[in-house]
């Protein structure tokens, strides 16, 4: 065995709602076969595109989350396609799909059918709200799921409507949960010898991202509101700044101290403020710090000299000096700064992935699961439309070239 999931075969029927699930399994070495409609999946139309060319072979979202997968085309809703899919099921361990609830049943490919063919098969469905319940047929893109989970309400500042992270997040969380649950089912299969059905709700995948908002409502009857650059909910009605302007951008810093300072205290800041000659009466209290005792006015008086200090330095200067003094000040990174961040380079995080067809290579975020004994496979670019049709249908399933041509003519593959 070379990688964690060597020998595991996954049929990935998902669109962007489920890409990451198969990607995580591929990162651990599973053979993940992306099954698309003949002509390519609609999700290939998701931007941004390589050099802004809206071409199904140039979607950067498709690239990002389909690394290390193989790709075939198959119309699973046609009679011939249905039969071929069941042949694939015989040899597979896992199926992942993100069609609307009930669709797989409609085309005769629900779990009961698959299980009859292969009792060890695990089937994972990813939908906005799950396979059951009053909203099971609701349609929901990223922003709608974020809204319904309670997360969106908390994002942004009070002067504007709630605001999402502009790179869609909800279905990445759902896909992550799908990978977890699928692996749980795979682990259990080693005991029971049988697969099972996994029903993932994207909404449920994001509810917990509201941190303590639900406990706050249920315990105090308080509804947590969005607070943008400030952190609320720590002290009594306290708004604590966490985003600060500096010389060349922004840094993130939050006063913590006393019993909350287990991770990184702010006491190192006291000496720094003194050395800079900007400390006030309140600066001393950083050393013996109890957030619950502060009024907003006192808090702001404590913040004022810090705001002045930060404006004197660049992001990098504050990060380095903060690290020296064990004060957690962190630069607000742009994508460029993430790519240039020395820690990631030192860990060999980035991978140049060859895109022969584009005549170039592209720098990708590498694998993040790093095992001592079982390294992640080298990154391989996402599959082209039908790239592995011959390899899989002919070499592996044993369909004749004549049969493949027939199926192509019928637009089945």
């Amino acid at each position, binding site marked *: 065995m070379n990688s964690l999931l060597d020998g595991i075969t996954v049929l990935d029927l998902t669109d962007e709602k489920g890409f990451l699930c198969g990607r995580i399994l591929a990162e651990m070495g599973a053979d993940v076969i992306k099954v698309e409609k003949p002509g390519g999946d609609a999700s290939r139309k998701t931007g941004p595109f390589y050099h802004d060319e809206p071409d199904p072979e140039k979607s*950067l979202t498709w690239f990002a989350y389909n690394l290390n997968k193989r790709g075939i085309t198959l119309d699973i809703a046609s009679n011939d396609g249905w039969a071929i899919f069941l042949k694939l099921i015989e040899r597979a361990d896992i199926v992942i799909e993100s069609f609307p609830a009930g669709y797989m049943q409609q085309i005769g490919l629900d779990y009961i059918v698959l299980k009859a063919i292969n009792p060890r098969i695990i089937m994972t469905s990813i939908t906005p709200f799950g396979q*059951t319940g009053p909203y099971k047929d609701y349609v929901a893109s990223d922003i709608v799921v974020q809204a319904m989970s309670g997360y969106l309400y908390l994002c942004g500042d009070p002067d*504007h409507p709630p*605001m999402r992270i502009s790179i869609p997040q909800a279905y990445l969380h759902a896909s992550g949960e799908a990978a977890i*649950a699928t692996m749980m089912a795979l682990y259990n299969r080693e005991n029971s010898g049988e697969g099972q059905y996994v029903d993932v709700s994207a909404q449920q995948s994001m509810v*917990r991202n509201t941190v*303590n908002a639900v406990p706050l409502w249920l315990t105090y009857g308080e509804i947590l509101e969005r607070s943008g650059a400030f952190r609320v909910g720590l002290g009594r009605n306290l708004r604590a700044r966490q985003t600060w302007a500096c010389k060349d951008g922004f840094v993130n810093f939050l006063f913590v101290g006393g019993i909350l300072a287990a*991770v990184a205290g702010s006491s190192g800041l006291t000496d720094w403020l003194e050395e800079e000659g900007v400390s006030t009466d309140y600066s001393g209290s950083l050393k013996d710090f109890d957030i619950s005792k502060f009024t907003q006015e006192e808090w702001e008086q404590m913040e004022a000299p810090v705001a002045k200090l930060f404006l004197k330095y660049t992001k990098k200067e504050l990060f380095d000096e903060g690290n020296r003094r064990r004060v957690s000040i962190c630069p607000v990174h742009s994508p460029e700064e993430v790519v240039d961040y020395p820690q990631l380079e030192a860990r060999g995080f980035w991978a140049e992935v060859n895109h022969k067809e584009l005549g170039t290579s*592209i720098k*990708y975020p590498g694998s993040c699961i790093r095992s001592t004994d079982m390294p992640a496979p080298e990154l391989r670019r996402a599959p082209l439309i039908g790239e592995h049709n011959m390899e899989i249908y002919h070499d592996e399933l044993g369909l004749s070239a004549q049969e493949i041509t027939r199926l192509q003519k019928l637009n089945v593959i």
Partner: protein
Amino acid sequence: MEGVKVLDFTWVIAGPLITKCLADYGATVIRVESMVRPCFLRVSGPFKDRVVGPDNTTYFAYFNPNKYSASLNLKKPVGLRTARKLADWADIIIENYVPGKLAKLGLDYETVRKTNPDIIMLSTSGQGQTGPMAGIPMTGMILVALTGFMFYSGWPGEESTQPFGPVNDFITPSFGLPAILAALRHRKLTGQGQSIDLSQLEAGIQFLAPGILDYTANKRQIGNVGNSSSDAAPHGVYPCADNRWCAIAVFSDNEWEAFCTTMGHSEMAGNPMFSTFPCRKRNEDELNEMVGQWTIKHTPEHIMQSLQRAGVQAGVVQNSRDVCEDPQLKARNHFWSMKHPVIGDSISFGEPAILSETPAQPLRPAPCLGEHTEFVASEFLNMSEQELVELLSDES
């Protein structure tokens, strides 16, 4: 996961979420804690009856059901000795200390595997176990800035703002748990353990990969677009009656037609200003204004239901109360209620996926701090009476 033994040295959210999932599926999870250095959640509110205390916090209880708690002061010999015994007992150790800390305690992978050769260890620190910045203590919020999430949160022409919460904490389990489960399966098949290094920064970056590729392939960085989307219009959050909001996303021209009909203005579908996606995108300000004039007259529930009936993607921007009363979440038994000795009805949440044969279950509420110290020592470690007395009398 019955019979799988997990030793949990984690705190705050990312690590505890990982061990929560294992516990929810039936693993025996022992959380090592100490009031000498309590978990941030143990000392963070809300608190039952507003009484501050490690067993009163409903925040901690929300994230830690189904676990056992052993109170061990690792600065004292007896506490450390007990922790090392637990390391030999465990199948899996999960920790998110600053790298190097466990080695100092003799609880690192290399040391533990000498006496427990097939141990599986997951280390999930902010920036990973190696590299020049590995030793910097990290909190969730600053990781959000470092990862680049703030860059993608902002209105046009304004400063970037903070997305809510320690985002990376909620991403890390998506990679950590599959890795642990794959390692556990691998061990079952081969008898071999392993150690896994999961950087929360590297995990977080996976969730921004399309933006990173836009930079590395196109040398372009687009942040601060508010709620707009390059694939949909109208797309955003629209004001409704009673100062509430509804999220709406219209991608195709068919959806646009259905939207106009629902709004009671089917003639609008053919209006050349908005009839195609490029037109709608070009006239997005006017479009948003018009949509808002409709939505403001209705409750977000009305907007959601009528648009959903027409097949248009829409959803109430729910606050925490709405979420607690959400009929869908109720139908899915999302929230768990368990009897807690201090809190009473203690609320947590189930796993977001339902497994048909081995579903996650609420077995017991979050533990009080050190609630199971004696139980763990006597049941799992067969400690002698004398050692047990020493352990329990220690200020742990």
